């Protein structure tokens, strides 16, 4: 009997890798951006499959929604001049080397992961710390929120500072000098 989870995993894996390849191989930047949106959606599905509901929603909303809109906006703004093939590549050998090194990296990482990566039961959370327990008790989003505002309150606040700085930086850079 064929497992639905297994099938969905393979479908998602192939789809996301294919769309990721599309990001870097489309000549037109708009196509690349659309392909990236597709990749992000597939990843959101992965998250759903892994039970991370809140993250999946946020992925769609923030990445596919906000960030990619920004990307598309800039791409269309610069599109006419922003074609990759206006000039000859000055370091053509880099493509071959990069591809070769990429294959080596994927090979080495896959080898390591397949042979070595197992989850040690000792490091698994259990009891009240367990995510599954909290989710069944309070629901997914509540579990996330509780963790965020208890254990991760300080990083969260620092993030807000980071965003303020980023906004200021973008304003300064965007000003007409």
């Amino acid at each position: 009997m064929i497992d639905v989870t297994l099938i969905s995993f393979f479908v998602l894996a192939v789809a996301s890798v294919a769309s990721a390849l599309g990001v870097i191989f489309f000549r037109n930047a708009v196509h690349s951006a659309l392909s990236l949106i597709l990749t992000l959606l597939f990843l959101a599905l992965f998250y759903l499959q892994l039970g991370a509901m809140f993250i999946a929603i946020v992925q769609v909303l923030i990445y596919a929604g906000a960030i990619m809109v920004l990307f598309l906006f800039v791409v269309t703004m610069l599109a006419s001049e922003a074609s990759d093939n206006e000039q000859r590549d000055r370091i053509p050998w880099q493509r071959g080397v990069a591809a070769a090194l990429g294959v080596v990296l994927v090979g080495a990482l896959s080898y390591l992961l397949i042979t070595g990566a197992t989850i040690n039961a000792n490091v698994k959370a259990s009891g009240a710390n367990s995510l599954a327990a909290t989710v069944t008790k309070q629901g997914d989003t509540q579990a996330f929120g509780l963790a965020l505002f208890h254990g991760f309150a300080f990083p969260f606040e620092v993030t807000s500072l980071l965003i303020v700085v980023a906004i200021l930086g973008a304003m300064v850079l965007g000003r007409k000098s």
Partner: protein
Amino acid sequence: MSIPVSWYLVVSAIIFTIGIAGVLIRRNPLIIFMSIELMLNAVNLSFVAFSHYLDSVDGQMFVFLVLTVAAAEVVVGLAIIVSIFRTRRNIDVDDMNILRG
């Protein structure tokens, strides 16, 4: 049958490497940026996978933080690209090579 965690990680590694290849091969900074987003998302995938398999919410926390950082980075990065484009009318990264020895 449950899927081993390493499968997710292999997918993550492949997408990450595609991101690297994009950075190395493409000359349009916008596409390089998108490749970086790919790399970030690949890492996010492994975080969520770990979160699931370790039955802990911490991995999702990291994803959440990476998301915000990525948003901030994109905002600033795109602003820089736009301001470079304003002055140079050209955004080929290979033209930005005044550090050549």
